[in-house]
């Protein structure tokens, strides 16, 4: 047991003397939490619109002003022809073209229906979808408002209306930050814990000090514990800094019990560090360790459910996501912080992560050989 004390003393001294690690722990959370949510915004707004208005009637003009007033669209240009407007799409200056045919107002009254043409740059599918949906909705609203002015009320009394009231719970203002920040925090903790652990051990391999350790009678479990504990503590520090930033900058106050949150983090860190440990037993150079970690991190992050929902993934991807510890962490973060879930609700994720922690660490310990 005493040996662990000496190991920890050595590790902490080394960590605090290493400027770059301190930078990672202090600066990275701050930067990531400040910049990422600002950038990682999937709300669709400021869609560049080009209008080709062949009608030039007060009707069409009203429609256009209604569209621009909505806030979703930015009027980029008025073009004389579709071809002109298309050049703008080609050069990425415009996202959407609305073409109003000649005689629009006149034909609408005479023939009771008229078409409008919309062309959307659909390279970004989400943007195109939502952009098209918004535009359609605005047109529909405009459409419904017309007859009210123009036709007698009697025409409507027989129709039935279903009134829909919708409410948004936990995030009434549909604030995207509330959704992203807990998830980003999860990624942060994962990256710091995983990378630092893996690199630390591999560095000892590269430099040669690990050989000296292998010659001593230190039990390998103690050695590994001596490596896990400091980074486990560091992981907690990073997480706490992150929580503070979330509160100060984004006003996110965890709805649920902090103890539940930390309890999960403690287990999660064990799993992540175990993973870093495992990678280090398979790497001989820092370069290798870093690349391998990065490869897996990237898969974990992309398939963690932060940017795209896991439910929408094909089945084979869902299976992979089930082996991704990060996805559980992101879930729990959101559940506890935003919805106030408690121990009972996170039990399924809890024992899965515990399983990860046990498997990964055991595998790493078995892999680590003092004698080759």
């Amino acid at each position, binding site marked *: 047991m005493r*040996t662990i*004390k000496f190991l920890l*003393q050595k590790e902490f*001294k080394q960590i605090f003397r290493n400027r770059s690690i301190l930078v990672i722990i202090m600066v990275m959370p701050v930067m990531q939490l400040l910049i990422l949510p600002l950038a990682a915004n999937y709300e669709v707004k400021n869609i560049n619109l080009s209008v080709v208005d062949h009608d030039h009637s007060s009707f069409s003009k009203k429609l256009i002003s209604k569209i621009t007033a909505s806030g979703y669209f930015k009027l980029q240009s008025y073009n004389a022809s579709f071809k002109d407007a298309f050049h703008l799409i080609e050069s990425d200056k415009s996202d959407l073209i609305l073409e109003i045919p000649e005689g629009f107002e006149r034909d609408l009254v005479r023939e009771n229906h008229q078409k409008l043409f919309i062309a959307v740059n659909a390279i970004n599918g989400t943007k195109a979808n939502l952009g098209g949906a918004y535009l359609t909705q605005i047109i529909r609203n405009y459409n419904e408002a017309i007859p009210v002015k123009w036709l007698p009320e009697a025409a409507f009394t027989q129709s039935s209306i279903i009134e829909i009231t919708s409410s948004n719970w936990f995030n009434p203002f549909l604030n995207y930050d509330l959704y992203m920040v807990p998830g980003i925090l999860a990624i942060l903790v994962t990256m710091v814990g995983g990378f630092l652990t893996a690199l630390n051990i591999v560095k000892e391999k590269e*430099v040669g000090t690990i050989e*000296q350790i292998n010659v001593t*009678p230190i039990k390998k479990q103690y050695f590994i514990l001596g490596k896990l504990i400091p980074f486990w503590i560091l992981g907690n520090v990073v997480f706490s800094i992150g929580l503070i930033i979330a509160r100060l900058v984004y006003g996110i106050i965890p709805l649920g019990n902090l103890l539940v949150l930390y309890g999960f983090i403690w287990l999660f860190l064990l799993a992540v560090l175990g993973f870093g440990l495992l990678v280090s037993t398979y790497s001989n150079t820092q370069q290798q360790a870093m690349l391998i970690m990065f490869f897996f991190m990237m898969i974990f992050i992309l398939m963690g459910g932060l940017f795209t929902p896991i439910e929408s993934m094909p089945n084979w991807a869902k299976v992979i996501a089930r082996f991704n510890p990060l996805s559980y962490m992101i879930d729990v973060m959101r559940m506890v912080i935003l919805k106030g879930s408690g121990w009972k609700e996170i039990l399924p994720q809890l024992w899965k992560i515990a399983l990860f922690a046990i498997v990964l660490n055991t595998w790493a310990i078995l892999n680590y050989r003092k*004698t*080759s």
Partner: protein
Amino acid sequence: MAEVVIKTEKLTKRFGNFTAVDEITFEVFKGEILGFLGANGAGKTTAMRMLIGLSTPTSGKASVAGFDVYHQTENIKKNIGYMSQRFSLYEDLTVMENIRFYGGIYGLTNAEIKAKSEQLIFELSLEKQAKELVASLPLGWKQKLSFSVALLHEPKIVFLDEPTGGVDPLTRRQFWELIYAASDKGITIFVTTHYMDEAEYCNRISIMVDGKIKAMDSPENLKKQFDVNSMDEVFYQLARGATRAE
């Protein structure tokens, strides 16, 4: 008869088709300074690594301090000290911190650590550098420090792998004085080197060529045997036919 502290019998290490260490058999006695010589690539380091529990032999038998190298490596490690070819102390810790760390790892009590570290620093005249990072020490000092740390827990045997590489002649002499002091205390020294003049300092020498031990005796006897005046010559005679150059 002196006590045998290291004993090997047809000890062999193979890597695939390549036989690095080829059925070496020898004994080392307590308190002696054994020079393990050979050209680069002859198999010295590989042999040593098997004896200190870093590498499992392919075949053959060996015991160190009475413990078997296959199954009792942890016990071996409790009784030996090691100084590697590549400097293995922590560059980003101070002299004192390194001493304290290894002392603790080997199970010395706090009182023992304190006493020994003071003694060590005094003997090496490192008072001024005690609180400095090891990285700031010149190479010779690092080597001496490394050696002393290897002796902290008063092991029965100390293994030194090319301890004086790249060090100036004066420092080398100082280093060997440390080795003598240890040997006087009854510690067995097992040192590999390819400096032939250092061979003269040892009680006995073994010379490895192409994985086999071609000679093992005191320097004087070897010189007489080959009818030459220096260990250089002895080595040259034996290594001439070597097929494994660096």
